[in-house]
């Protein structure tokens, strides 16, 4: 076997290693989804979606949980999107490349790796106690916003960076101000990437249980929240609660709850992919 043959062999070996590595994730996900669907799909019906919690597994529903998750999604979006995008624009377009901005950058990247329960403790002290928001939807949304801000900032910066410098220079060359350039050129051309980052971050917020349990989200809420100051529960808490019950019927309920949560997340991701597709098709350069 000469050197060329060896290299050929390495090439083939690596190729199959790559195939194997990519398949692992897909296979595990397929097994997981198949088992969840076979456990829970038959449980999902109108009654399940519109009923309140109950001690009887077959009477219990997730109305308060999914509406709570929806509230959390929209409130968190309202808080985190403007803050995240504004911070990213500042860091990418305005801030000078000095030591302060480097420290900021390193911090934001590191914050993305802080365990979510830590954000819960922070939220409990700041929003629940100091701001006196109590265990309300608003306190939950602020806490989850903190959690996902780093993700949004990083994703937005990447999207802005991908805008060709020539576009910006052309805009400046036409006499546009920095803000005009950002508003009319940079943001529209990076909107697809920003939207993807934002929706992925929000999907994560919707799936979190630990930080919202810490700030005092409840397990049993017999009413649908009417205002951001209402107390709430979310799907992950309801699922967690059901999984720990002895009655096998609740395990089925938990599986059904997981399907709903997955469906919500997939739907959001679907919207993100669609938005990106739309925006990129409209780019005219």
């Amino acid at each position, binding site marked *: 076997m000469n050197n060329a043959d060896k290299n050929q062999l390495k090439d083939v070996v690596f190729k199959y290693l790559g195939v194997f590595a990519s398949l692992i994730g897909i296979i595990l996900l397929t097994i997981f989804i198949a088992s969840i669907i076979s456990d829970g799909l038959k449980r999902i019906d109108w009654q399940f979606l*519109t009923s*309140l*919690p*109950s*001690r*009887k597994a077959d009477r219990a529903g997730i*109305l308060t949980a*999914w*509406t709570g998750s*929806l*509230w959390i999604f*929209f409130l968190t979006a309202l808080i985190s999107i403007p803050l995240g995008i504004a911070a990213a624009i500042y860091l990418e377009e305005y801030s000078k490349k000095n030591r302060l901005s480097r420290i900021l950058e390193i911090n934001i990247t590191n914050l993305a790796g802080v365990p979510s329960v830590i954000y819960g403790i922070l939220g409990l002290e700041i929003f629940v106690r100091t701001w006196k928001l109590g*265990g309300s939807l608003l306190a939950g949304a602020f806490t989850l916003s903190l959690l996902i801000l780093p993700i949004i900032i990083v994703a937005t910066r990447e999207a802005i960076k991908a805008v060709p410098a020539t576009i910006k220079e052309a805009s400046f060359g036409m006499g546009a101000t920095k803000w005009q350039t950002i508003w009319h050129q940079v943001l529209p051309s990076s909107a697809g990437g920003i939207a993807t980052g934002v929706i992925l971050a929000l999907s994560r917020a919707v799936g979190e249980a630990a930080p919202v*349990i810490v700030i*005092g*989200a*409840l*397990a*049993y*809420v*017999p*009413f*649908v*929240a*009417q205002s951001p100051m209402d*107390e709430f529960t979310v799907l992950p808490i309801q699922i967690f*609660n059901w*999984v*720990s*019950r*002895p*009655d*096998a019927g609740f*395990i089925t309920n938990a599986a059904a709850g997981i399907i709903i949560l997955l469906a919500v997340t997939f739907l959001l991701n679907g*919207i993100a992919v669609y938005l990106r597709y*739309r925006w990129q098709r*409209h780019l005219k350069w």
Partner: protein
Amino acid sequence: MFKKIQIIILSAATIFLIACQGGNQQSDGSVNDLSGTINIDGSSTVYPVTEAIAEEFRAVAPEVRVTIGVSGTGGGFKKFSRGETVISDASRPMKESEAAACKENGITYIELAVAYDGLAVIVNPKNDWVNELTVAELKTIWQPSAQNVITNWNQIRAGFPDKELKLLGPGTASGTFDYFTEAIVGESGASRGDYMPSEDDHVLVQGVAGDENALGFFGLAYYHENQDKLKLLGVDGGQGVVLPTTTTVKDGSYSPLSRPLFIYVSSEAAKRPEVVKFVEFYLENAAELVGDVGYIALPSEEYAKQLAHFNEFVAKTVVAAGSN
């Protein structure tokens, strides 16, 4: 382009509004003018009982909002002592430090027992050498000094076969763990560390069901749901061997592995008729409902006694408030 976004946002908002409407469908027409919010927090062990009561209470008083959290017994007491909750679920009596915190904030309260919970010691059904264990033997198995020492069934009792001992139990964060170690080893939290812990009791059930040499403990309700996969052991606490059953847990003879579950009600309740009504409803209906969630009811005269205590407590509080 931006029209599209508007449409998306609008349709999302519409779905949202429809979702909010759902909350108004709850009134069942039952006539009751009680209203208000009752905030409850505390033990996740007691949670299913309180949830069952709250569920049935909706039919009686549809306008009263009962919310229940699961911060754990200690976490619940913390909120209770700050006056953030009016009822606290507890799987153990209040500690002195917690009582002091209540006193500091001027909160008086009453402790009411609402159900019994039994702990089951279980082995694999293929295990034919053991039917019961004494408390002393359980201590030999679980105490901290047993770590890496007691690893074989034949070390527990002469005559047990030479088989490896596999131990499973709840994780150290669980109230069940605290309770078991307190009752068996004599000190809450004192246990050997080389057992397989899981916060999910279903994992413990699977673990014992799948291993002939396994021994584990968890709430009796999990045994009842999985009777065909497990073998229940009797426990000898010095008065002979007792199997945990509804009767033996209820009359206290399954000792020391049965415990009462409590709710604590703050004196704030006396000012709020909906809370008084809820607690009365709790004690009147617990006998019927606790069985549904896998726990064991107190004898009915015991509920009557608790109810009398509670009414006395309310009357006293009202008098005290009036004299101020």
